[in-house]
Structures are given as C-alpha cells and as structure tokens.
C-alpha cells in the first residue's frame, strides 16, 4: 500500500470519533463534540486534528470510512423531508394501520409511532398486480398525473412509491416514477421495488418511506462532506459503513440512506468479529455497554449474525414493536435500556428496577455533581468501589461519592431498608441480570447456546460489568480490547466493501423454477457487484447466496445458505433447509411442504487482513501498587482488590484477581473468579480461575 494511513470517522449523538490508522497499525484517536447543525464541520475538524497529531497530510490518507447516526436521528427527531407516498388504490392506510396491534398488553394508554406521511399525502393510484406480478388492473396514468397538483401544492421534497406486489414486478412503480419525474424533475423519488423488494407490504412501505424521508438531507450532507474532503486535499476514496457492517460508495449511500441507520453498532460488531479471527475464537458474545443502552450480538464462525429487519426508535422502554420497522440487511443485535446512566428506582412491588430512563450526560449520574438527583448504575459502581473517583474519565470529571451515597440511600435503600452499599449491590446485580436475560433470550431466538462462548466487551461501562455478566452466563473468557472507547470507529477500518440485496420470489420447493431463480441471481449479482466494485476497484469479489425458507403456512422464514457452486437443486436446498431448521428448532417436520419466499445475494470484497495474535507464553505475575476495598457481587461481601494502571501493563503480564485495571475511558473489573493477562495485541484477557 502506498498510502501512509487510513481514516475512520464515527458520528454519534454526543461525540464524533476519529481514528487514524498508520501503516504500522498504530492508532491516533480523537474525540470531538458532534456539531448537529453542520455535522461535516465536526468531521473535518476531527480529521485535521488526527492528521496533525500523526504528522501527516490529507494526501497521505488512502481511504476515508464513515459511519453516522444522522439518518437515525432525523427519523427519531422527525427532521426529514416533506414526503408523500403513492399507493395502490384501496390500500392507502397500510402505513398507518401497521400490524393493527398493541405492543404492550396491559397498558391501554399506548400509542403507535405516527406514520411519517399523513393520510392526505398518501395518494392512491389505480393499478393492481397479483402475487405473481401479473397485472390485474393496468396502471392508470391519469391517476398518477392526478397526484401532481397535490405534490406541488404541498411542496413535497421527496416521494415514495409503494404498490402492492411490486417486489414481483416493478413496472408500475417505474412507470409512475417516470411520469412524475417528467413533471417534477427535481423531486427525489424512492421506489419500494428498489429499496426493499420483499413481500409484506407494511414493512416494504415503511422502509421506502423512511428512505425517502431522510434522502434529501443525507444527499446534501454526503455531497457537502465529500466536497469538504476534496477541498482540503483528500483525494482518496470516501466510503460509508452500512448497517450490515459493509462498505459502500457515497452514490449508493445517497440513493439508499436507510441502509446507514445502524452503522455505529455495526462497526462495534465488525470489531468483535475481527478480534474473533485474530484470537482464533469462532464463537463470541459481543457486549457493548455505553451511557444509555447495552447491545449484545453473537459472532459465529467468526461472522456477526445478521438480520433483515430493524426497528428504528423503539420509543416504549426499548420494547419490541414500539418502533418503526425497516427491512434492511443489518447486524443482528439486542439492545436494552441498561447503561452507566440508567436510573434505578424501587417499584410498587418493592423490586429494584434499573432503566430504561437514563440520566444521560446532563445532568448525569448523581456522582457527577451536575444536579442529577437519581441514583444510576455508575453511582452503584462508585459505591461498590469499582470506580476510583479521582481517576474517572482520566480525572476530567471529579466524582462526588457522597452525592452517590445520598441518592442511592434515598431512592433505593430507604424504601427497602438497605444501606447504600447493599442498595448499590442490588442495583448492579439487577442491571447485570437484565443484560444476562437479554443475552440468553437473544441466543434462544436464534437457536444458539451462549455458554461455550467467549465475550468481548467494549464501550465505557462494559469493562466494569463484563466479569460479573460472564459469571451469570457461565462464560470463562472475556476480552477487553485496546481502544475500546472508540470501538465502532476501529471496526469501520476492519469492514469489507460489501452489499446485499434481498428480493422476494415466492416459490414452493416442489415446484422450484430453477431457471427463474438462476436469472434472479444473475440480476442480483450484477446489481450488487456494481456497488462493491465502485467501493473496491479491482478486488476479488466473493458471493454468498441465501434462500429465506419456511414450511408452507409458517410465519417466519429462516436463512438457508445456498452452496458455493450456486446450485439451487431442490434436493440440495431441502437438505440445507432441514439442517438450518434443526439448528434453530431442534427438529424438523418430516413430510411437510417447504417454500422459499425470498432470495438474497451478498457480494463482498475481502476484509482487511487481520494478523493472528500469537499466544502469550512466559507470563509474569504483576504485583499491584495499591489495593482497595471493592464489593464482590458473587459472594456479596467486600474484598481487597489490587489496582493496576493499564497503560503500564505489557504483553505477558498476569494480574491475579481480584483486581481493578484502570485506564482513561474505563476500568476493567477482574472479579475474584478471574485472573487477567495482557496478550500481544494488548488486549486484556480475563480467564476464569481453574477452581472457580
């Protein structure tokens, strides 16, 4: 490689993280405040600072990789474009009726999230296809033209078109788009047959409408950022991270910005998968705990689990069903309202509850002394001795232990007759228990076992809770990577250029039309390869084909790999289906008819290579310079913990538990059940003691 460095930028709600990776793999990291009104400014400032620190010029950078929550935030804060929707006549309320259900059984006061397009901007068009894509009612062009006055009068900036069964035949949508753009050439148009060509009209429409809603904003932002990079002398490719953990070009991102919604967490998962490869651990549980939420993701055979649907903005306690579903390839993870800032209280049943409300950064936990009066997980960690007040955040925030005690006693201790320490014990145990339950449920949903896994923990609060969580889940190895505080941005640098397209073509296995499926895959391959080639010119491309199958009449499809030779022979496909079904559900149903609903093609360039980390031999036991009393959750008593400074530890060092390993962004708690060692990549590895 002739370039000196690669640059990754992750825009989050509060901070913009910049990571510059030099050719020797060493990292320069910069955190700047996000500039919400013109996010590109924060990016350019951070990039300049990182280059300055590294002593490099923009021309030295070989690639810029960017992930951002801007699209997500625009959806949550309703800051998108004024959007209209053309629908099949008779079906203009699909978007608002959603699943016709309530996501919380016992609460009569809940509301579903309001649709992004109100009813008067959902305009009916006379046309109708059937499930095979055949025309039942020809497109009535006059009814398309009839929508123009409304689009103009309402000053619509972006249009979604979502007709029934368009996944099977896009012609009506394409023709309608042609008619509209002839009259309104500057209007941004998103087609459901383009954005999410999958069966199930509600999810296809929400995805298309969400895409249309954020598209003008994201196009403007991406173009202006690209121009900004250019004018500052960066001449390298500029790539975006998708929610599926792959990379694509600005052009693709600007067309399908909905695919960017979960890029931050995807970066974290990519980092976890890369560490899995480097340490040769095929099965991992990735655990990311920040200020507001905890996210967990399973890595199998060195790959992140992926899903096809994601809910944006679960507005009711992060509850499933309370958000807006979008059908995009996404890293499958479970997210719950459990972070350092999560607030603890006692409910009517005298049970300690933690989260999902968070004290955030302002006012923050009680111990920040910025007016926060509610006890949080961070307060509990401080009371339990896991956080050393003068070393928190590198000493930049002075923690007030007395304020933490007072808040904990008032809100949790007093109602239950507990002192502050016992209350803090209860709070941290409950938050760890919730995370353990979420991780187990997530594994059950995927038919996987969690117990044989190692865990990788990153994010500000994860190293504090990882060992206890591992104890609850019965895991015996925990990895705390270096630079965990900017884990997502580091992950961006490890992502491959890749793109996945899913298209529905329902078919029973006993009536499989191999020629049609073959033709479908050819067109998917062309489409996806174009995207990937633009992002990784000249790279050798690999393809992965998947069929989404189920027994006839079931409601969920499961992903079934199609063999590398691409054969879709019914017998082979059935074998693969039965194998996948057995893994998920333990048994198959002999004699039951099988069908395929959708087909997917993923094209990817190789991931940046990750060198294996060799095992550490010759461990040196390191004595602690100091020691502190820390509350041990597994035995519910105080123990003497050794205290270490992470920056002073070297590969081969062994730290017997119990111990605290302190760094600027976080502290790793080595409970009595674990010992820690430092590997050649400077990861902290926690290993369960033999007799524990």
């Amino acid at each position: 490689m002739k370039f000196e460095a690669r640059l990754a930028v992750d825009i989050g709600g509060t901070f913009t993280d910049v990571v510059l990776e030099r050719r020797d793999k060493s990292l320069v990291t910069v955190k700047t405040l996000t500039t919400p009104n013109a996010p590109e400014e924060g990016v350019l400032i951070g990039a300049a600072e990182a280059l300055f620190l590294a002593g490099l010029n923009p021309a030295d950078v070989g690639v810029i990789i960017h992930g951002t929550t801007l699209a997500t935030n625009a959806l949550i804060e309703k800051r998108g474009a004024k959007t209209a929707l053309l629908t099949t006549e008779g079906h203009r309320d699909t978007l608002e009726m959603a699943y016709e259900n309530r996501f919380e059984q016992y609460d009569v006061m809940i509301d579903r999230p309001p649709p992004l397009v109100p009813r008067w901007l959902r305009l009916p068009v006379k046309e109708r296809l059937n499930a095979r894509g055949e025309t039942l009612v020809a497109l009535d062009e006059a009814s398309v033209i009839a929508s123009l006055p409304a689009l103009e009068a309402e000053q619509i900036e972006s249009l979604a078109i979502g007709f029934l069964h368009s996944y099977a035949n896009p012609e009506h949508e394409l023709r309608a788009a042609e008619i509209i753009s002839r009259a309104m050439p500057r209007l941004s148009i998103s087609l459901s047959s383009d954005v999410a060509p999958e069966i199930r009209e509600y999810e296809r429409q929400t995805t298309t409408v969400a895409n249309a809603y954020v598209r003008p904003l994201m196009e403007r932002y991406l173009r202006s950022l690209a121009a900004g990079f250019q004018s500052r002398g960066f001449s390298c490719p500029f790539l975006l991270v998708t929610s599926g953990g792959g990379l694509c070009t600005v052009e693709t991102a600007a067309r399908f910005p909905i695919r960017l919604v979960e890029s931050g967490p995807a970066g974290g998962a990519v980092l976890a998968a890369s560490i899995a490869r480097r340490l040769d651990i095929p099965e991992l549980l990735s655990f990311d705990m920040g200020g507001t939420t905890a996210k967990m993701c399973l890595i199998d055979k060195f790959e992140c689990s992926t899903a096809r649907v994601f809910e944006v903005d679960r507005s009711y306690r992060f509850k499933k069903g309370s958000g807006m579903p979008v059908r995009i390839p996404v890293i499958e993870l479970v997210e719950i309202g459990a972070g350092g800032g999560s607030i603890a209280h006692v409910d009517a049943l005298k049970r300690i509850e933690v989260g999902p409300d968070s004290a955030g950064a302002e006012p923050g936990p009680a111990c920040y002394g910025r007016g926060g009066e509610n006890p949080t997980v961070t307060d509990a960690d401080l009371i339990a001795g896991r956080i050393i007040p003068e070393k928190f955040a590198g000493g930049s925030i002075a923690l007030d232990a007395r304020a933490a005690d007072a808040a904990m006693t008032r809100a949790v201790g007093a109602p239950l007759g507990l002192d502050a320490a016992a209350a803090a014990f209860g709070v941290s145990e409950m938050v760890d228990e919730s995370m353990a339950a979420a991780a187990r449920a997530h594994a059950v949903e995927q038919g996987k076992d969690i117990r044989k896994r190692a865990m990788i923990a990153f994010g500000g609060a994860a190293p504090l809770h990882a060992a206890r969580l591992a104890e609850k889940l019965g895991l015996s190895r925990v990895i705390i990577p270096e630079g965990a505080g900017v884990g997502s941005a580091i992950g961006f640098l490890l992502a491959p250029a890749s793109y996945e397209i899913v298209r529905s073509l329902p078919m029973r296995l006993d009536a499989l039309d191999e020629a049609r499926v073959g033709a479908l895959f050819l067109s998917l391959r062309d489409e996806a390869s174009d995207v990937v080639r633009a992002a990784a010119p000249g790279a050798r491309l690999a393809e992965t084909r998947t069929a989404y199958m189920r027994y006839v009449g079931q409601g969920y499809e499961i992903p079934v790999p199609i063999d590398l030779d691409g054969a879709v022979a019914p017998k082979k496909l059935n074998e693969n289906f039965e194998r996948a079904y057995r893994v998920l559900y333990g048994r198959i149903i002999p004699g039951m008819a099988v069908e395929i609903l959708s087909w997917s093609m993923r094209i990817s360039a190789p991931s940046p290579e990750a060198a294996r980390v060799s095992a550490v031999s010759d461990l040196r036991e390191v004595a602690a310079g100091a020691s502190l009393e820390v509350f041990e959750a597994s035995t519910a008593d105080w123990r003497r913990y050794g205290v270490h400074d992470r920056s002073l530890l070297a590969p081969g060092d062994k730290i017997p538990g119990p111990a605290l390993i302190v760094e600027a962004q976080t502290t790793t708690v080595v409970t009595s059940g674990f010992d820690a060692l430092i590997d050649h990549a400077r990861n902290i590895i926690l290993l369960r003691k033999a007799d524990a």
Partner: protein
Amino acid sequence: MSAVDQIRLQLLWSRLIAIVEEQAQTLMRTAFSATVREAGDLSAGVFDTTGRMLAQAVTGTPGHVNAMAASVGFFLKKFPIRSMEPGDILVTNDPWEGTGHLNDFTVVTPVFKNGTAIALFAATSHIADVGGLGFGPDARQVYEEGLLVPISHLFRKGEANATLIEMIRANVRDPQAAEGDLYSLAACNEAGRARLLETLDEFDLDRLDDVGALIIENSRNAMLEEARRVAFGTYDYSIRIDGYDKPVDLVASVTIGATGVDIDFSGTSPASDYGINVPLTYTQAYASFGARCVIGNMVPNNAGSLGVVRVTAPEGSILNAPRPCAVSARHTVGQMLPDVVLGALSKAIPERTPAEGASCLYLPVLLGGRGVGGGEEFIVNPFYTGGAGARPGKDGLSCTAFPSGVRNTPVEINEASAPIVIWKKEYRTDSAGAGRLRGGLGQTLVFGHADGAAFAVSKMFDRIRHPARGRDGGGDGGKGGASLDDGAQLRGMGRDLIPAGRRLVVETPGGGGIGDPAARDRNLLERDIRAGFVSESAARGQYRLKSG
C-alpha cells in the same frame, strides 16, 4: 430476611419470568398455526407442585391469562403429582378444563430434581384445525366442533403415546400441522425445564416452593394495595351485543373491597344454541384482564396477583356454559368482557378507563373447494380489527386489537397463499364514535376470488346491530357490517357462499367517543377532516362545526 436474601429473591423472580418468556418464544417460533406465530395466541407458565402459577409469559392473548392456570389444577386432580414420572407429558383440549375451545391444546410437563417433582411447566397454543365443522359458530353441541382429547399422556416416561397421536391425526384436516404443534408445545416446556434446573443449581436450591410462596405473597399484597386505592363499592354495567341469532346481555357487577375485586355476571343471558358459548375459565380470563388493565397493571401474573380478582357467573348462562354447549367461537362473546368490566370501573376510576370499542376481532374464514364454491381448495383465516374506545385524554386507537393483542397478516402474504384478492383495506370515514375525544376508526375490506370463482366465508362478527357505546356525551362507534358488493346484506354469524363474480365487503366497527363532540379541539377536528377520518357533513352535524 437479610438484605442479600432479599436481593437474591428478586433475582430469582426475574429469572423465572425470563424463563417463561423464553418458553413462550420457543413456542412462537416453532408453531404452525398462524394465530400462534403471528398473533401470539399462546401462553406459557411455571407452576409449583400444588398447581399455583409462579410466573407467566406476557403473550398476545389475555384469553389464556388465568384459564391456563386453572387448567393445571384439573391436570393435577386427574394425575396427582406423586403419580407423575420423569419423561411424562400430559395434554388436553377439553374446553372446560383448558382454555375454552377445542382448538386450544394445553401441555403440562413435570420437572424432577433428585427424583422428586419440584415444579410444572404448562403451555397452551391454538391449533388451526381440530376436525368437526371447523373453526366457526355454527355447531349446536361441542361434539360437532371436533375431537376432544381428555387429559391424557402425550408422552409416558419419555415414550410418545402413539395411539393418541394417531387418533388426533386421523381426525383433523391438517394432521402434520397438528402433530407439529403438539411437539412444539412439548419442546417449549422442555426448554423451560432445562433452564429452571440450571437456575436452581446456580442459586443452590433444591426446590421452588419456598421462593414461590414469597413471590405469590409479594404479588398478592401489591395487587391488594392497588385495588384498595379504588373507592370501595359495587359498580354495575351491562352491554347488549348481537349474539348468533338473538341479542345477548352481558351484565356485571364489580365490587371493590378490602379483599380485592369481585366480578359477578348474574343477570347475563342464558347459554346460546350456537357455538358462541363461553366456559367459565375463559370468562374469568377476559374479565380479570379487563380489571388488570387499569388496576395494578404492572404486577406480574401469578397465583398471588390473579387471586385478588375473582370472577363468577351463574351456571347455565352464556358466560358459564355447561357441557355439551358449543363453544368454538367463544371469543366473540369473551372479548366483550373487558368492555363490561371497564364500563363498571369507569364509575369509580373514569380517569383510567376507555370507552367501549369494537373489541371482538373480525376473523373471516375464507374457503374454497368441494362443497364450498368449487374451484381450487383453499382456506385462510386472516384477522382484522376495528376501532378501540376513546381514552381519558386521548382519542381511541384506530384499527387496533383490544383486548386481544394479535398482529394482522399482510395482504401480500394472504394473496400469495390463497386464490383471493383483497381489493380494499382502508379506514372507514365517520366510523369513529364522535366526541371531545373520539373513538378509533374501523376499516372496510373487500375480498374477491382471484379467478372470479365462488367461495365461502365463515363469519364471527359482532357489533353489527349493537355498536360500541360512547361515554359522557360521546357518540357510539360505527356499526360493523358484512355484505356483497351488490349491496345484499349478510348475517354477522355463520357461513355464506359468495357467488361467482361477486365480492365480499366487510366493515369493522368503530370505537365509542368520550365527551360532547361540540367541545372537540377544532384543530384536531380540522385534521380529522383533512385526513378523511371525519366527513364535512359529520363535522357540521355531530361536531357542530360552523362553516367558514
């Protein structure tokens, strides 16, 4: 109890709830019946050895809330815990000892530790077909509604009861699905059993009974405390619904006192001659759900919290229908019970209770083939919702299931799996009960055969003659309807043939409003007019909007 024990108890309680949620999740992912998978028409729970429920998963249907809990008692009566052996799995679909109709199968699995039974897992799910006339209200006696499996062994000491399984397979229209669903019930209990044993090891416990007693006690006290916050007294309410062939009166008196909530249905109409009768366990489930929605709704379901709400109905009434009454479509009446209970409670806690809503799901069974229109053989059973009642401070939810928690099936999925075309599925203008806070809207659906052939529809629609009523001056919700596209009216209940070339039009009811419509916020009214939820003429009429 020491501080540590107190926290350990809470951890174990959380764990038990997580275990039954996992149990339910396993069932939902493996079920064949569409209503289980898509709609969560299932329940799952863990019980102590005396049959007291300790935790139950929160699923899509309140119909099983304590019906399944009562069911476990019947199992133990027939097979006392001491007679059970490792590897035993029991099953029934008896409507009176299960959850109210033959389609619901309940499976019970004992858990053994060191050779002693220490707990039971139970799960219920809806199996699409049990033979007989099929899911619908037309039977006169339960014998016509399909196969009844008395409480018996599905597995004995790990060995499947092959005779029973063969009997079931021989009596239903889709034997594979029925067998598959029975296995998935057994598998979900097995998942619960394994996780419970792991948990007991982690907490170093040999039995569950002591912890169970504490959980029950704690929940009972919390629930009692909630009930005591409501002004003591007896509150009466009644509603009249369409029924099958004649109107049905549902009459409740709800008494709040120091010992909790007592709901009695004396005065309710006698049992029907058709399949809309409700066995008592199902009555208890929906009535107590209604109360629990507004009293102590954060207290988890278990024997302690459920015991605080007691429900009685006179034997022989439609809400305590004896054998051999027909019960297949018991949901059409049962789903109205929360409206009755909430109506009574609105006199005590109006600030928490909604107005009446459509409540009864519209579940048209569409079918074709020999004897039902000819042509291609098919059957689909989608479900649709009407409008919910207006709520204190808020409009009612349009087209939203209440009290049931089901999800609909996509139009595209229904059209891909059967030769039907759903030509229309849209909100019905002016179907919401008018009010300062209006009800939710119902919807209009138009179904046709893909090839224009004849097909049949089995209907279980209520609120066609008797709408959801408004409160405090609010208007009634729009009535439901069933007709042909040429205007010919159809009955709300029973099977009809849709002639070749004709389409079926179904209109779901709207929810009732609260308060004087003239007092509605004019901005909200303008918005409703713009969206087409309220017509100009209704705005000028009911809402007394002055033009200009």
